[in-house]
């Protein structure tokens, strides 16, 4: 029961990342690609926390925290570049 | 974003009550940083607590001036009560927004009628405007694109009205009446 639950949710979130990746390849302009990466990063943060539950180790939560903080900085850097002034 | 708009009244206020302002900012910032440290380490070992005390003391001395620039009002019971009511209203609106967007995504014909409208706000501080813009971003169908002065540029996924006054009433007012009390 628990194993199938974890696997179904992991594959659902993985499907979400895959859809964002298709939008990344199709997107006509650079802002479309930035939106796809932003969404994929939020989904990935949730996925990392879920993997911490799957492996039952608390140290994996720190990876999710660091990832959330630094992805914010990366996306804001991309947006500042698009706005012509870093 | 709008430095030239709000800087002059704030500067005059800061010179009159310099000293208590600074002490209050220092204490608030220290409390916030120390609570976050305890939540992140999750241990009450005295070595951890001492390290956290020193780090948050240094950071709050260093960042005190930036905290004053945010212009957050002092703490009272009335403001706390309105803040809690505001959070509950925001939570209900977020859940409504998600079901709204989910309906539009799943529907095979995509029932959208997008457009960009302008609304007005009466809030003065930058921090209050930021909270208003974030709340508008998380509520049904609306998304803040830009803020200048007292105007907000809103992208609306299903435009109901094009008039500025009506749009202000429909989008901004349900949060603005709480934020006005919190930041008065």
């Amino acid at each position, binding site marked *: 029961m628990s194993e199938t639950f974890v696997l179904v949710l992991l594959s*659902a979130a993985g499907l979400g990342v895959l859809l964002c990746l298709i939008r990344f390849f199709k997107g006509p302009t650079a802002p479309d690609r930035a939106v796809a990466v932003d969404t994929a990063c939020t*989904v990935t943060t949730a996925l990392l926390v879920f993997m911490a539950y799957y492996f039952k180790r608390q140290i994996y939560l720190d990876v999710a925290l660091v990832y959330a903080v630094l992805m914010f900085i990366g996306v804001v850097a991309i947006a500042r570049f*698009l706005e012509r002034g870093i | 974003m709008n430095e030239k708009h709000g800087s002059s009244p704030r500067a005059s206020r800061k010179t009159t009550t310099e000293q208590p302002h600074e002490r209050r900012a220092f204490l608030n910032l220290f409390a916030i940083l120390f609570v976050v440290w305890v939540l992140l380490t999750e241990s009450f070992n005295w070595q951890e607590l001492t390290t956290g005390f020193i780090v948050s003391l240094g950071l709050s001395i260093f960042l005190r001036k930036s905290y004053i620039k945010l212009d957050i009002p002092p703490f009272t019971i009335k403001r706390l009560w309105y803040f809690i009511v505001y959070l509950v209203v925001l939570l209900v609106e977020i859940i409504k927004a998600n079901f709204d967007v989910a309906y539009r995504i*799943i529907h095979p014909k995509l029932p959208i009628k997008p457009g960009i409208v302008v609304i007005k706000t009466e809030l003065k501080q930058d921090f209050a405007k930021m909270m208003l813009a974030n709340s508008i971003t998380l509520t049904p169908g609306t*998304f803040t694109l830009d803020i200048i002065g007292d105007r907000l540029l809103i992208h609306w996924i299903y435009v109901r009205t094009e008039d500025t006054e009506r749009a202000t009433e429909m989008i901004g007012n349900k949060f603005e009446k709480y934020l006005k009390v919190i930041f008065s």
Partner: protein
Amino acid sequence: MLPLIGKIVTSSGVVFLLLGSLGVFRMPDVYNRLQAGTKCTTLGAFLTIVGVGIMEPAWFWKTLVIAVFILITNPISSHAIGRASKKSGVELCDRSVVDKSRDFEEYESNL
């Protein structure tokens, strides 16, 4: 009882995450994609992370810190992308009905 609540909360969060990604895939232009992406992934990530915290009560406070951080920063980063794409001149899709940004630029230059 507690693991059951956690499982329900986590499952609903993952459903919202999947819907947000589907919205990013289906919507016609940048601003509509941002709308779908921001709203659904914010609540979805919040519910997923807090649900994991409910399933493992020892982790609850740390997961709450991550969730609140995402709740604060996700609208800000989306707003940054939206503002940048407005300033770099991305067009609205042809189904849109009104564009008041000309008025807004006029107001900005008069300030």
